[in-house]
């Protein structure tokens, strides 16, 4: 196991280096002088020159990248132009909301996915299955922000069931605030999840070991739970891990719809404030989150499934 972990960590090294390169060169996509653009039209030439120096934009490109890497190694993502404080601190302030949203989303997605996929697989090609498949077809094409707005306007503005955006105080109040946004993102990813789990369940239902279990005289409920669902759960975990990037992208938009003070909202305010160091820092954090979760998914998978070789 430890050798497997070590090997996966070593494999990550080039990817992480590549990530830093992408993030670093991002600022060079800015047309013109980033320092002048960040400071806007009222800036004096001295201010611009000073910011250029602070950002290290006067150095040769390779030196700039080395400085960027050195700062990263010491945990520094630079300073925000707008907030005038370290980017890392800002990100850590906004990270908990996004993580809570992501976690609630995953839980809700599983609650939506498993019964729907089970129903569709057991009633294959019958009415229930057709309905689930129609839901998938439409669900894939539905803009999540539109669903979010409709839920917000219907359940909050019209019927006043849920609080109107923001994150609230205290754990349970926060959960209440997170329910609608998490439901919105969960609905948008469960279309993909249900589709995968349904076909995985159908494959397992016809597999030999399931036929054997039935022949042994196990009740169909026991067969389904112990032999079918358990097997298919593994593939759902993998698919969930692979769609995590999609999920994180969804949270950026939904945070905006529900005014949640998470990373996505910080990203957007920084974009409109042309606060490029913050944009770079947040992009890096999203990527690192996705890599870490994928690594954990791999490890959990390897630990649970005896067929996955660890060496």
């Amino acid at each position, binding site marked *: 196991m430890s050798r497997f972990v070590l090997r996966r960590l070593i494999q990550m090294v080039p990817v992480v280096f590549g990530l830093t390169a992408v993030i670093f060169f991002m600022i060079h*996509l800015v047309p013109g002088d980033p320092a002048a653009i960040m400071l806007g039209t009222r800036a004096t030439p001295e201010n611009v020159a000073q910011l250029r120096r602070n950002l290290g934009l006067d150095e040769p490109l390779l030196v700039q990248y080395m400085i960027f890497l050195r700062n990263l190694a010491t945990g520094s993502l630079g300073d925000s132009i707008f907030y005038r404080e370290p980017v890392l601190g800002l990100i850590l302030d906004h990270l908990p909301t996004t993580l809570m949203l992501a976690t609630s989303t995953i839980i809700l997605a599983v609650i939506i996915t498993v019964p729907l996929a089970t129903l569709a697989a057991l009633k294959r090609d019958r009415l229930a299955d057709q309905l689930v498949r129609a839901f998938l077809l439409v669900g894939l*094409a539905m803009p999540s922000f*539109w669903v979010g*707005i409709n839920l917000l*306007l219907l359940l909050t503005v019209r019927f006043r069931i849920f609080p109107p955006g923001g994150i609230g105080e205290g754990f349970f109040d926060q959960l209440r605030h997170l329910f609608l946004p998490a439901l919105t993102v969960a609905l948008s990813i469960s279309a993909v999840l249900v589709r995968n789990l349904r076909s995985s369940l159908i494959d397992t239902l016809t597999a030999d070991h399931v036929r054997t279990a039935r022949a042994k005289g196990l009740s169909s409920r026991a067969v389904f739970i112990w032999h079918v669902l358990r097997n298919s759960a593994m593939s759902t975990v993998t698919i969930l891990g692979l769609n995590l990037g999609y999920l994180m992208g969804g949270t950026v938009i939904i945070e905006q719809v529900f005014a949640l003070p998470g990373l996505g909202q910080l990203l957007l305010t920084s974009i409109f404030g042309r606060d490029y160091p913050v944009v770079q820092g947040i*992009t890096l954090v999203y*990527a690192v989150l996705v890599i870490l979760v994928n690594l954990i998914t791999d490890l959990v998978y390897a630990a649970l499934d005896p067929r996955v070789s660890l060496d």
Partner: protein
Amino acid sequence: MNASTNVVGRAGLGAAEPLAPRSRRRISPSLIAGVAILGVVLVAVIVGPMISPYDPTEPVLTETFAGPSMRHPLGTDNFGRDILTRILYGGRVDLMIAFLATSVTVVVGGILGAIAGFYGKWWDTIIMRIVDIAIAFPFLVLVIAIVAMLGPSQNNIFVAIWLVGWIAYARIVRGEILVVKRLEYVEAARVVGLTDRAIILRHIAPNVITPVVVFAMADMVLNILVAASLSFLGLGTQPPNPEWGLMIAEGRDFFLRSWQLTTIPGLAILVVGTGFSLLGDGLADLLRPAR
């Protein structure tokens, strides 16, 4: 990230399957429905703006928030602009983004994937390492970050999708080619002395094209959603120009007064997206052998 994992993070595709023999290809209801929906939409967004008597951006402040009527079949918005006209103009924008963004990424990703899969060695190493890195980013976050750096505008949506979208196709094409390359008839073509180009175009491409086309249809849906999302966030199409995501954003402040403003553009995205999904399913049935 494991480059050989066949699930692209957006949709999974199976390994290379040969084209179905002509006799076993079937025209499914999905295909007919998809073609019908997209055909109607296409004619509407091409012809509609030509015959509409209204301007999509010019405010008519005497006719704000009009309900559906003979003159304005879907009513008017907060600036008194005809909603149907704006939907049709906006459809041009979204369909054009989806089409241009997808077709460029198909070609670029396809070529890079073909090079990686066919020539292998260090070509493969370089291209797939870039793919590994790009996959580590959440797609939408990377697109948003690129648009942020380039500056919010409709054209920069293309650039951002071009920079990121080819990756999925490179992975699909490379994966398929690795399988097809070892098939006997490709070996035979090589022995006969055909050039690499001829082998790729004549013997490999027909096998690889099916999963690419099917994925491209799902990608069209995704790219429309990306364009709409970015415009919704204020990073894409800029007012007063019409675009479906932007129309949803603009309409949400007036929901209680006029629900059409957000609902209709959302339904438009839904209909077009469902059309592409149906077309993709139908093409899959048509091109893959029946099982």
